[in-house]
């Protein structure tokens, strides 16, 4: 309990810092925001008008306060391009990104878990070398290039899968999968690399533990020892680093959505950057940061549930 409270409390300054960082993004622009948006050719009156509209003339603290106030009311401002509320824009794009995130994570686990366990069970053998090398490749091959190669091979050459074009899951699951499978694999493969090494090293640590020796001395088969006894313990550090994995995943999705033209959250961000739609950029980045912080808190809490030794509010017998 005490741990959890400390965790939540220490997240507050982080959230404040994050909000300040995101807020000041707009104000880091060289010159004033209005000129940045309208361009240098715009008339001084237009610039002045926009600056007034953006509230640039108020003292900065007040601007920050207004902005935070709006945040708490779920208002992230409006897009500078078409004036739609940023929240609405993001909500539209979220499903695709969410699906990609989950899919990539699943792919990563499907690759990393068996190979990590296998490598740890047979360290130093050819299986270990092959799996480790594959994970090396996963870390080294840029996932956007992998995506391009997949498009080249499966779409252009073989015509099996579409190169782009997104259909929502609810509309047509099959078409959705056809469009999403390549980006999921491309992103997931990269994530699996880091995950696999974690699983492997964690399993190796666990396999050297005394209680594994006890299990073997009881007559348990190797599989029972690996899956039954070792895995549960080995997963603990893996779960705790999954939080970092999610953050990295989100970063990678920006490019992936661009390559495969998937109308997701990441593509929204990059498009907004190019269209100089600063409010959308601002709002999107804030959402991402808050999401990452929340995921990390959840992972920390999860940790206390998985490891029985960390039950702080249970009495010792």
């Amino acid at each position, binding site marked *: 309990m005490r741990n959890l409270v400390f965790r939540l409390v220490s997240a507050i300054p982080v959230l404040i810092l994050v909000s300040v960082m995101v807020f000041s993004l707009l104000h880091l622009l*060289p010159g004033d925001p209005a000129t940045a948006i309208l361009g240098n050719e715009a008339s001084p009156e237009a610039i002045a008008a926009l600056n007034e509209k953006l509230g640039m003339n108020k003292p900065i603290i007040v601007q920050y306060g207004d902005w935070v106030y709006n945040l708490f009311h779920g208002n992230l401002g409006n897009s500078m391009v078409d004036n739609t509320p940023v929240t609405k824009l993001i909500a539209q794009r979220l499903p695709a990104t969410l699906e990609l995130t989950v899919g990539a994570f699943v792919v990563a686990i499907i690759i990393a878990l068996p190979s990590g366990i296998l490598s740890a069970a047979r360290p130093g053998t050819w299986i270990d070398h092959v799996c480790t090398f594959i994970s090396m490749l996963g870390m080294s091959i840029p996932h956007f290039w992998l995506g391009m190669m997949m498009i080249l091979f499966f779409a252009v050459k073989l015509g099996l899968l579409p190169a782009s074009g997104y259909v929502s899951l609810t509309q047509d699951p099959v078409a959705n999968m056809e469009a999403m499978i390549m980006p999921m694999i491309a992103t997931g493969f990269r994530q699996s690399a880091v995950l696999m090494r974690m699983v492997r090293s964690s399993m190796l640590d666990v396999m050297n533990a005394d209680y594994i020796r006890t299990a073997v001395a009881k007559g348990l088969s190797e599989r029972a020892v690996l899956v039954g006894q070792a895995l549960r313990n080995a997963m603990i550090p893996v779960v705790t680093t999954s939080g970092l994995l999610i953050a990295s995943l989100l970063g990678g999705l920006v490019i992936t959505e661009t390559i495969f033209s998937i109308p997701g959250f990441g593509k929204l961000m990059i498009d907004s950057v190019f269209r100089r739609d600063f409010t959308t950029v601002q709002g999107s980045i804030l959402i*991402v940061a*808050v999401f990452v912080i929340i995921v990390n808190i959840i992972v920390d809490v999860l940790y206390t549930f998985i490891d029985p030794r960390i039950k702080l509010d249970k009495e010792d017998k």
Partner: protein
Amino acid sequence: MENNRTRRQSVMRMICARFIRDRQAMVGAVLVCILVLTALSASVIAPFDPIFGQNYDMVLQNPGTGSYMLGTDELGRDTFSRLVYGSRFTLAAAVIPVAFAMIIGIPIGVYAGYKGGFMDQWVIMRVVDAFQAFPSLILALALAAVLGGGFTNAMIAIGIGFLPNFIRITRSQVMSVRNLDYIQASKSVGCSDLSIAVFHILPNILPILLVQMTLSMASAVIAEAGLSYMGIGASPEQPSWGSMLRISQGYLSVQPWMAVWPGISISAIVLGFNLFGDGLRRAIDSKVRH
């Protein structure tokens, strides 16, 4: 003092010996050397001009046509020459952001780890947490939106992305070392904190920081390639491997080889840095295990 130094020297020698025996690590070292050599001697190796060597008669050729070893791009420029010159961008991308992150991050990490206290717990680490809440690519995106695109800004953005990691790792290493006996001994003799940090703590954490450095270089190369690919990093004429990929995507169905070579190069170099860093880590670990 003398004892420590001689012990460190023999440890260094042992680590080097182990590293050399490690085949994978040496492969990584070779790849990194190839990168450095190519970058340094680009003007000598490349047969054609990478930016201005357009040849509109030989556009989008396959590898092996004439003297175009790896084919040509949409303006008739030799892909191989562009690749060779692009290695300079790759090298810069590997070195600059990481150097930036280390020069700023390591002192902060040492301070945070050594002094601890309020400044460390509530100020430095919270700032680090805040930075880490932004996936590095998205951080780079945001900075690009504000500062504009371009290679230099991309370098800064990537460097800032590495800062939290270096601070964290340095800090935790320092924390594990600071209570060792001979540190206490130095303190009790009256050495200043600064001299302890520089002469006693840093040399001990250096190996791990070197490992982190090489692995970060690998990440930096991929990050720069990604940013250039999206159009936020190097501009299209600059033959950064990432921007080469960007251009090639438009011609994927017409001349796929344009996309293949830059990607292979990036993968190879990143693999090199990763193998190097991993080999380094193994060489250091074995020393610990003894």
